[in-house]
């Protein structure tokens, strides 16, 4: 960098800190652009679209709350989908409870625990479409394994058409969802368990606390952040398990397994009602935020702090 050259001297004037700032923002820019383009902008667009009457090829007209009014008062399918979504959200704690039990078991000093961990976790990273096909067939009325087992054990007289029954379709889908999420929950809980110092249990043992007390007084409180995380991620995963429902039931029979995300898809891409679908999307999003906030409060309110280090 010879100071004799005019262009170079200009570069020297650019202070080191400024150059650093430029580098940092240049590094952040591509990611920020992606999130702007595919998270922030869609969110805002959804909000705007939900107050409009619009379809491709037609100019948008501001119609105020009409979409929301239709959704809340004239749309039975929306309510059905909303309740089903709640049902799926409510199923997340069941999965987490099972995973907690399993995590405690594989956390103990037994032989082969690595193998068990692998087996329990293996379903999580697999393609949900394929998992849905497998479970669709497990629940099958004529050749499904579950009906075969139930009949062999004389639990039922005639096969249950799980996925074609209004009563059983949603629980069946939920079961498949839990089956796939179980390993994920377990891994998160295990990493939480590893942070609990062992001498805490020893001290409690000396004080005469039995296993149940140790679990309630030590394990659960110290695992709260992990459990909260499981719930939030599990909830997000479950309510967006579009592929599972699309393949297993398509939302049917009737609307028995319709959830908000499948309904939004159908509204948008089967009926080309983008504006109305946007109103449902906004409601869906507010619902998710509300539940996350509630879960955060219930977990003691400090889980977010732990999450942010």
């Amino acid at each position, binding site marked *: 960098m010879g100071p004799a050259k005019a262009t170079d001297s200009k570069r020297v004037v650019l202070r080191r800190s400024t150059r650093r700032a430029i580098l940092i923002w240049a590094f952040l820019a591509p990611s920020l652009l992606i999130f702007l383009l595919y998270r922030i902008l869609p969110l805002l667009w959804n909000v705007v679209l939900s107050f409009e009457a619009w379809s491709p090829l037609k100019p948008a007209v501001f119609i105020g709350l009409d979409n929301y009014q239709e959704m809340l008062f004239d749309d039975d399918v929306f309510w059905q989908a909303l309740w089903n979504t709640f049902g799926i959200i409510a199923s997340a704690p069941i999965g987490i409870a099972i995973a907690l039990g399993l995590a405690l078991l594989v956390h103990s000093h037994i032989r082969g625990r690595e193998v068990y961990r692998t087996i329990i976790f293996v379903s999580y990273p*697999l393609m949900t479409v394929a998992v849905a096909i497998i479970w669709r067939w497990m629940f099958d009325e004529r050749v499904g394994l579950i009906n075969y087992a139930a009949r062999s054990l004389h639990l039922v007289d005639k096969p249950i058409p799980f996925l074609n029954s209004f009563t059983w379709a949603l629980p069946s889908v939920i079961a498949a969802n839990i089956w796939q999420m179980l390993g994920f929950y377990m891994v998160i809980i295990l990493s939480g368990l590893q942070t609990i110092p062992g001498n805490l249990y020893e001290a409690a043992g000396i004080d005469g606390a039995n296993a149940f007390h140790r679990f309630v007084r030590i394990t659960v409180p110290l695992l709260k952040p992990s459990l909260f995380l499981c719930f939030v991620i599990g909830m997000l995963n479950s309510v967006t398990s579009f592929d599972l429902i699309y393949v297993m039931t398509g939302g049917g029979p009737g609307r028995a397994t319709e959830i908000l995300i499948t309904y939004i898809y159908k509204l948008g891409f089967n009926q080309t009602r983008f504006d109305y679908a946007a109103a449902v999307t906004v409601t869906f999003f507010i619902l998710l935020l509300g539940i996350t906030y509630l879960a955060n409060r219930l977990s003691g309110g400090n889980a977010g702090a732990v999450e942010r280090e």
Partner: protein
Amino acid sequence: MMRQRRTWPIHLTLIAVSAVMLLPFYWVFKTSISGENIFSYPPNVIPRDPNPFYYVDVWYAIPFARYFLNSVIVSTITITANVVLNAMAGYALTQNFRGKGFVLLLFLSCMMIPFQATIIPAYLITGKLGLLDSYLGLSLPLFSTIICIFVYKAAFDAVPRSLIDAARVDGLSQWTIIWRVMLPLARSATATNVILSFIWSWNNFMWPLIVTRTPEMQTLPLGLARFLSYQEDSTGALYAFCIMVLAPGLLLFLMAQKEFVQGLSAGATKG
């Protein structure tokens, strides 16, 4: 400590759970090589007369190679973009700069927006960009993931300050330090990024369903769902297809299980 306790009830429980986790796979695999329990009731546990007939059948019934190629291309683009973009953003976040709090807040709030809740505008945006039915359009929304950015950030944070200072004293440029010192030390973060972005793009279903128009652009999950819709439910070919689709993910997982689990829990707790 529970060391003195008898362990057989634990083993019994875990074996039962393992059976529940593995049985579906076994049954599908068995059907894919024998196709028998479709017609026979009660089913046999051990496959009788196993043969690769259904795999060959699938190969000729659908453009498997095409789906596979599409999936590989989309996944490769996604993985490359993720590693580059996330490493850059992760590195930036280890530095102190004005507006860092804002960026962190932005990232954390973006994490709360599930992509599925943005599909309609995302579709319209992709259309405006002219990327519908293209490889770039298929992979663009997954180009950067917040969890993976934080995985890189944590790995870069763990690089000792003194090492970077020493490198600087030696006259290495910022760029060389990142390339020659930080990235090699963050190898496990890179592994996590590769694995997670592979799984996400390989398994992705909803976005390709929306964005692809022509059968030539369909990825494996789409091909599988399509095959399901025009084949009778219970054919061995469908399950052979399932196995063929599951195999790559399964293999990768078994090979890099440690990195996978580590990355997932690190990403989840630090993100």
